[in-house]
């Protein structure tokens, strides 16, 4: 009886997850969707406490005694986890969102791996009433361990890279692909050996634990910071799959459906991101993008003079402009400049200048990263234009103001087949009458490629921290 009620609760949870994803289709209903999913999650958790175990409750042992230590630890996990999770999620800067998602994803992967680790010896127990064949439970447990470990280790590296605890540049070493391939094949072989000769405490199982953790690390190390969103999204999908597989072992529908949904959605999202960069997923994962190209482009890269203006000189250009397109990039995010950008835009609009924002799909470090930041600064939706909408407007644009964006406005992507970003759709800011680029220095962007835009005769560089530059620009615009 209770068992039916629990399964109904899980079904309701599954429905809330699906409805939540559907509500995420529109900005107006998205928040409701998220809250709905959270409520569903709470329901699934409450239901779990009523799970029967044989002929007694899961909260009791064989003798019918209350498992006080287990319940106490569970309470502790809930209290610590809720405080820690809510506190860090509230406190984190909007710019640090990507690494936060990476961190939480890694913890999820770790949780899956731990569940598999604990469940493994139980597979050989005396529970004879299991209807699922041992082989299936064994395979899914082992796979959820491997995928969970890869997701955990990979996400932690992604977190470290984005948090700048380590270099964001790709880390490569000789024979890397061979070694990774070897590790991958090794993992498969160990899985096969384990499945062929399964016992409760095989050394092979612990070898697999180590191997998959190493694989997670070596898989993400060679990937540059600019590609981290794709990696996080892929690992997110991995964790979903692993959680779904854990659902096989535990015979739990909430896990099966939640995991399956996320596994599928993460993959779609990953492919969407790759599409926006016009690169196949394999190239992102194995390309070590931005590692070798620095040297290649510095020899044959663009040359010429860079025109560097003071803020005051740059402000004068706005005096004769009728329309301005603002192109934000990661530099705006780092400098937390979205509010001053909005102020500048307001001042320009007071002077009767039309202001639009051009949002490149992969500007920043996550798709939609710029939208999130500009929304934070209360910028009107109607002023945001995506790539296809804005590109035809650039030839009629008086001033394109590029704030901390680099690779997404590099014209080399249009024609230079040798460039690693060749073929990526870019914002054609070079077609605007004047381009003002606010940038910290001449250092190449995250992908490590020189940008010839900065050498164009219609480009003006204003060096300095984006927030200070734009604030000064905003003040200077006042006086023109």
């Amino acid at each position, binding site marked *: 009886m209770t068992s039916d009620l629990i399964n109904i609760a899980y079904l309701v949870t599954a429905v809330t997850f699906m409805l939540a994803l559907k509500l995420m289709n529109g900005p107006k209903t998205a928040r409701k969707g998220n809250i709905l999913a959270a409520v569903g999650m709470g329901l699934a958790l409450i239901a779990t406490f009523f799970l029967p175990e044989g002929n007694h409750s899961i909260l009791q042992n064989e003798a019918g005694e209350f498992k006080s230590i287990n319940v106490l630890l569970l309470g502790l996990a809930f209290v610590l986890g809720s405080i820690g999770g809510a506190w860090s999620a509230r406190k984190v800067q909007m710019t640090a969102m990507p690494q936060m998602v990476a961190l939480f994803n890694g913890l999820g992967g770790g*949780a899956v791996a731990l569940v598999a680790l604990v469940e493994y010896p139980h597979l050989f127990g005396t529970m004879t009433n299991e209807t699922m064949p041992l082989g299936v439970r064994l395979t899914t447990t082992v796979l959820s361990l491997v995928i969970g470990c890869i997701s955990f280790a990979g996400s932690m590296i992604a977190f470290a890279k984005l948090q700048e605890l380590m270099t964001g540049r790709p880390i490569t070493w000789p024979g890397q692909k061979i070694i990774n391939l070897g590790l991958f094949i090794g993992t498969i072989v160990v899985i096969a050996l384990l499945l062929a000769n399964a016992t409760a405490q095989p050394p092979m199982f612990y070898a697999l634990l180590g191997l998959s953790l190493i694989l997670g690390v070596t898989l993400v190390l060679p990937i540059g910071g600019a590609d981290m969103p794709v990696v996080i999204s892929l690992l997110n999908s991995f964790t979903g799959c692993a959680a779904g597989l854990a659902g096989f072992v535990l015979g739990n529908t909430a896990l099966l459906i939640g995991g399956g949904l996320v596994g599928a959605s993460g993959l779609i999202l990953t492919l969407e991101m790759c599409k926006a960069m016009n690169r196949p997923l394999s190239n992102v994962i194995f390309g070590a993008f931005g590692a070798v190209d620095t040297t290649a482009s510095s020899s044959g890269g663009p040359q010429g003079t860079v025109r560097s203006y003071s803020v005051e000189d740059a402000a004068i250009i706005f005096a004769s402009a009728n329309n301005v397109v603002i192109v934000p990039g990661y530099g705006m995010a780092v400098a937390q400049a979205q509010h001053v950008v909005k102020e500048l835009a307001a001042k320009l609009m007071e002077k009767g200048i039309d202001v639009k924002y051009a949002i490149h799909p992969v500007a920043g470090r996550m798709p939609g990263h710029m939208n999130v930041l500009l929304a934070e600064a209360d910028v009107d939706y109607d002023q945001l234009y995506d790539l296809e909408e804005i590109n035809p407007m650039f030839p009629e644009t008086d001033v394109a103001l590029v704030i901390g964006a680099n690779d997404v406005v590099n014209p080399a992507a249009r024609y230079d087949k040798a460039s690693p970003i060749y073929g990526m759709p870019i914002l054609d800011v070079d077609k605007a009458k004047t381009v003002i680029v606010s940038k910290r220095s001449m250092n190449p962007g995250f992908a490590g490629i020189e940008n010839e835009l900065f050498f164009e005769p219609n480009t003006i560089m204003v060096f300095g921290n984006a927030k200070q530059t734009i604030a000064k620009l905003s003040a200077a615009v006042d006086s023109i």
Partner: protein
Amino acid sequence: MSLIAVVTIFILAVFVGLEVIAKVPQTLHTPLMSATNAIHGVILVGGVIVLLRADSTLMLVLGFLAALFGVLNVVGGFVVTDRMLEMFTRKPKKEASK
């Protein structure tokens, strides 16, 4: 549960995931990634089960960590997503109050 029932549920969930997600606009990709990240925190259900079943010190420690990681994933994931979406909904509200 029988194997075939479990496989059926899993495969159907995957297809629902593919269909529902494909329609989400680019603007909402970051919050979406974050929300799906929170949803796979449902592994916490597994964490709760293994912690409650634990019968040795080692199992208690591992189960505790699984539950703790799961709670962090769920609570952190939903709160971060809500923070992102809060900013998306603020604007229309203001206009409505004008």
